[in-house]
């Protein structure tokens, strides 16, 4: 599994070849194209590491995939911390020429928009430009806010579906066990006491079952009703 696929699967519970991954990629491409950004990216929130991880990029920056950004750093971290769209530019000293600022090869204009699900942070969508004459405006920020909302919804729906499937699978297994016990009871009632003891022993041996490996963050989140405001 490559780095991007691993980040998507581990942090969001999304398979790299899934339609959800394709929609996320499309949103990053669309956003970057509409606002005229040189690069766009999607960073996912890793609550364990208290940081953000680059999961997808467009327009270059593939070397960033898997790189981590602390939550308390820069405009991306600020968007995550405030749950707000942040639009900005790099810092400069009063009197510094635009040429020398551009020569630093730092992003000259940045948008960072948080992806949220029920106000929980999922990740951040970003757009950057290196051209000093380029500035992102409020309309660009509004667009990114909307795209981030859609991206958050895509991930949240995927996670809810996974949780429902897990619950449904558990229910099917329980039905199967109950059916087996019922058939045994009908054909050999004397064996029921032994079956009960065996089940108790199995329960003691197995204990509480953890979720599927690598999907803890996605599946351990409880299902919630839609946000009422």
């Amino acid at each position, binding site marked *: 599994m490559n780095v991007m696929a691993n980040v998507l699967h581990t942090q969001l519970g999304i398979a790299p070849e899934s339609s959800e991954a394709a929609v996320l990629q499309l949103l990053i491409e669309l956003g970057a194209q509409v606002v005229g950004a040189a690069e766009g990216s999607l960073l996912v929130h890793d609550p364990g590491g208290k940081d953000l991880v680059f999961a997808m990029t467009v327009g270059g920056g593939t070397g960033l995939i898997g790189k981590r950004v602390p939550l*308390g750093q820069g405009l991306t971290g*600020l968007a995550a*911390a405030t749950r*707000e*769209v942040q639009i900005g530019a790099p810092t400069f000293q009063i009197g510094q020429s635009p040429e020398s600022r551009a020569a630093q090869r730092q992003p000259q204009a940045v948008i960072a928009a948080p992806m*949220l699900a029920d*106000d929980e942070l999922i990740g951040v969508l970003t757009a950057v430009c290196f051209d000093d004459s380029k500035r992102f405006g*409020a309309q660009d920020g509004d667009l990114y*806010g909307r795209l981030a909302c859609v991206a958050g919804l895509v991930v949240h729906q995927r996670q809810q579906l996974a949780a429902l499937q897990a619950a449904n699978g558990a229910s099917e297994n329980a039905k199967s066990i109950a059916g087996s016990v019922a058939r045994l009871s009908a054909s050999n009632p004397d064996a029921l006491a032994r079956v009960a003891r065996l089940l108790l022993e199995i329960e003691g041996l197995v204990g509480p079952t953890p979720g599927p490996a690598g999907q803890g963050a996605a599946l351990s989140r409880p299902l919630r009703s839609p946000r009422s*405001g």
Partner: protein
Amino acid sequence: MARDMARALEEQLDAQMAGPLQTVDVAILDSGIDATHPDLASRVTKAYGAELDHGRYQMVEREPGSHDAFGHGTAVASIIARMAPNARLVDYAILGRDNTGAGAALVAALAHAVDAGHRVINMSLAAKGEFATQLHPLCETAYRRGIVIVAAKRNMPLSDQGFPAEFTSVVSVDRAKFATPDELRYVPGKVIEFVGHGDDVVVAAPGGMHTTKTGTSFATPAVAGIVAKLLGAYPELRPFQVKTALHALSQP
């Protein structure tokens, strides 16, 4: 008739705000302030940081200094400092690097700022809807005590416009691009009543630097700066009178 009255009031306000102004304390609930920045020299008189104590946030006083995890509060403070020379800034740092507890810390900071009686409270941060029930009584108390809370509309297009900006007891602010930072627009009948200049604003950044910012976060201190000047000229104004004056100062 109403327009004539507003114009007369606007002229009177402009004349009064151009004269000597009384000092007004402006609390800034944000990511902290880099008080060492040249743009803010001697302007930050008090500083508090949010600290967890037995599961509850407490505001702990500390020396004003370089306290800003993100640069957001420093940017906000520099707009108020520039617009209102009579503003004495009070730093309430509630947004830390650990990215936790922002809503609960915001509530604790607002309670402290209202209790301290700072005449203007700038909130360029919005809390989640779940904190609305805690914020509402604090805003009502502030209103009754003559404290003007200036709060930003949420930038994200979610189901609410941000709290406390949705409460009528506060001066709620959206952003637009105006020719000058002291321009205002009043939007009758909307949840967010005022629009301030918040596009491509040059602001202070930690470490003696500058940057440009866009958003409601930076329109809000522009309005808070006007409020601080109003209260410096007319200290007896109550919050509803401040809104009337802001209306008079707004573009038609």
